[in-house]
């Protein structure tokens, strides 16, 4: 028997039933009844952010680092619209998230009431699904369905808009078991016949490559485990997208490094030259493929994805397998073993010899300077000084993000939080807060650029309030580095508005919030500064002044295929042609 309760109480009850431990949010008029209920209980922890965008990114960081859905609670109108960037970010990167928004009372909807916005209308294209709950009787069932939709199939953000009168009114609470989930049941088992074809292809391929993505991480730790087993047992080389880093360990024997626009030379050439491409939970994003009509021209392509709409969206797939990556990898591994663990040994040997040749290019090599800290050097030192620790890395968006992806090695899934699809500057700092909330004792570092970091710097207040010892490692080049790089390569070195004028003193800024600030500009002091940052028990801003005009290489210029990579400054002259210039 379930008893009647208010809508506000139902919200909290439903969250508890869903196993929610933390809610990231910001109160306001239209969610006051829910905040009143939160006040009167202690099972669910509420983390007060300083801006609703921060709440969503923090929930993303929480979700990405735990595998559990992130939960956000914000008010109507500006509360909801401020959350839109984060929700879109979660949609692009398939992050499970439930966003609860307050709404003006039902009888005021449509009257342009105070803090009214058409939240379900605004968020319809940036959520997996959303609901406007018009009566309290359906509220709890809707929240349960929301959690189901957010986590089932390809994960993503959902939003439940709750008018204030619905929060005040009472009705019977429907437990999770009674919630309607039947209408959304994505296919998770792969087609055995197609899996068999893929296993046959693996047995004979001369130049196979695994191309893995965020789907492996979203599928859960079992998928990463199965991937490792399959890759190591077959001896097939593996590369990964930005979102998939950590699924296969960077120290693994078969690891080629990240692929794509700023990916490694050997990874991109392996993609270009392979005869069998096995896409596991990636989506042929334009940062990966470069020029589509010259993308891996001679390979048979297998694509394992839980979302049928990812198949054949941009690249034609010869072996489409719709299903959960974990299930499909499990079935592949079993079948491959049962058929006698065959691979084309001679072909693989030649293939690896070719790859080893490409590796000799040492596309990430750089010469540290004695005068100025080069950003690559800063990342390499961070890697050296934190290696072996169970660390969580977040990033903002731009050059620093690519350097972090290139120079830091990820050994496990869920340790790397970055905004891949949407490329949201301002993601990393709040995401690091969400990660630290989920893992209070872990080392959480946000590798940032000074421009990105300033976009959500108000969250320093959150870090201090909740004693979250997040480390903000700012690679400060006083530039919007990636914009500057493109202007150099593409727009005749006319650096239109791509410098950071009037920057704050980051040390004083940290101190103003009650945190520790460190500044370093001499390469000789870098190690000490990083060590000091790690050792401090509390939030730290490390203002690392780096070379201002460093460009990020390797780089596939837009509009070009994988085998037209630029490896360094010398090769940049007229690298981007007119056609490529229109691309982003």
């Amino acid at each position, binding site marked *: 028997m379930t008893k009647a309760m208010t809508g506000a109480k139902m919200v909290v009850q439903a969250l508890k039933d869903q196993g929610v431990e933390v809610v990231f949010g910001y109160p306001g008029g239209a969610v006051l009844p829910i905040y009143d209920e939160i006040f009167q209980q202690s099972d669910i922890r509420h983390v007060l952010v300083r801006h609703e965008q921060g709440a969503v990114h923090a929930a993303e960081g929480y979700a990405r680092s735990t595998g559990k859905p992130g939960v956000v609670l914000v008010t109507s109108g500006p509360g909801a619209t401020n959350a839109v960037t984060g929700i879109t970010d979660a949609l692009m990167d398939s992050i499970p998230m439930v966003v609860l928004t307050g709404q003006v009372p039902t009888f005021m909807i449509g009257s342009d009431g105070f803090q009214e916005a058409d939240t379900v209308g605004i968020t319809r294209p940036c959520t997996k699904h959303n609901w406007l709950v018009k009566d309290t009787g359906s509220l709890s069932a809707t929240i349960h369905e929301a959690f189901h939709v957010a986590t089932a199939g390809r994960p993503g953000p959902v939003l439940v808009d709750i008018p204030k009168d619905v929060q005040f009114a009472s009705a019977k609470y429907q437990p999770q078991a009674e919630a309607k989930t039947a209408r*959304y049941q994505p296919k998770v088992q792969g087609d055995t016949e197609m899996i068999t074809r893929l296993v046959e292809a693996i047995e004979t391929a001369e130049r196979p490559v695994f191309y893995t993505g965020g789907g492996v991480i979203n599928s859960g730790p079992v998928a990463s485990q199965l991937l490792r087993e399959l890759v190591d047992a077959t001896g097939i080389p593996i590369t990964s997208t930005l979102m998939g880093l950590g699924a296969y360990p960077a120290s693994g024997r078969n690891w080629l490094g990240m692929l794509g626009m700023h990916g490694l030379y050997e990874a991109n050439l392996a993609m270009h030259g392979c005869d069998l491409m096995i896409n596991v939970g990636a989506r042929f994003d334009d940062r990966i493929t470069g020029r*589509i009509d010259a993308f891996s021209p001679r390979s048979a392509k297998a694509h394992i994805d839980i979302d*049928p*709409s990812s198949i*054949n969206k941009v690249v034609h797939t010869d072996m489409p397998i719709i299903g959960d990556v974990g299930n499909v990898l499990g079935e592949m591994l079993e079948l491959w073993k049962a058929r006698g663990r065959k691979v084309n040994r001679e072909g693989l040997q030649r293939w690896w010899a070719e790859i080893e040749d490409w590796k000799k290019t040492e596309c990430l090599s750089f010469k540290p300077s004695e005068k100025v800290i080069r950003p690559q050097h800063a990342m390499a030192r961070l890697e050296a000084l934190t290696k072996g620790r169970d660390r969580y890395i977040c990033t903002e968006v731009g050059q620093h993000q690519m350097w972090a992806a290139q120079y830091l090695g990820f050994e496990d899934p869920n340790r790397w939080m970055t905004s891949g699809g949407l490329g949201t500057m301002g993601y990393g700092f709040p995401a690091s807060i969400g990660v630290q909330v989920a893992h209070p004792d872990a080392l959480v570092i946000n590798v940032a650029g000074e421009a990105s970091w300033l976009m959500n710097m108000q969250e320093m207040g959150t870090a201090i309030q909740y004693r979250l010892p997040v480390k903000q490692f700012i690679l400060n080049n006083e530039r919007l580095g990636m914009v500057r790089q493109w202007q150099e390569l593409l727009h005749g070195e006319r650096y239109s508005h791509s410098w950071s004028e009037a920057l704050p003193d980051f040390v004083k800024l940290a101190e103003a919030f009650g945190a520790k600030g460190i500044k370093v500009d001499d390469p000789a002091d870098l190690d000490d500064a990083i060590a000091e940052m790690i050792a401090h028990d509390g939030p730290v801003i490390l203002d690392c002044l780096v070379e201002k005009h460093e460009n990020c290489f390797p780089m596939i210029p837009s*509009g*070009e295929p994988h*085998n037209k990579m630029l490896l360094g400054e010398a090769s940049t002259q007229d690298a981007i042609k007119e*056609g490529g210039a229109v691309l982003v």
Partner: protein
Amino acid sequence: MPALNIKKGSTKHSAYNLRPSFSEHLETHTLAVLVDNEAGVLARVIGLFSGRGYNIESLTVAEIDHEGHTSRITIVTTGTPQVIEQIKAQLGRMVPVHEVHDLTVEGRSVERELALLRVEGTGDKRVEALRLADIFRAQAVDSTLDSFVFQITGTPEKVDAFADLMRPLGLVEIARTGVAALSRGS
């Protein structure tokens, strides 16, 4: 640096072309989409088409099961085979969408549209309009001394043909329902 043995300039396309090397041939398909009749479901479907740049040639929607709250949306759309497949996959993954049927490929189907046309004129033109309406089995559902409102049912092509004939005879206004379609019995 060891070069991969890739033929230089292996494509004639310009670098603008981020489109996949799928067929460029355009096809028109009629899709029947069964959805939960809940708030916003039509906006979701239309938003998908506008947001992803798909064409809608015709769209009709009405509740078909009052108790089950189910509606049927019939969409006529044009695109390359790959785009048509994308549309179906994108529709299929929406939460309130139960079934997506491509009537164009799932065997034979019947497509009908209803249109109302007001034709104004006198004398010979008026007589000719009435005569053509008879040939097309259009009914006059309203008449004054100098106008008719014709109701015609048929395929979109038939409605087009009738409207073309009425234009020189004084067609002043037309309202069309869009296509409703159903697969034929086997």
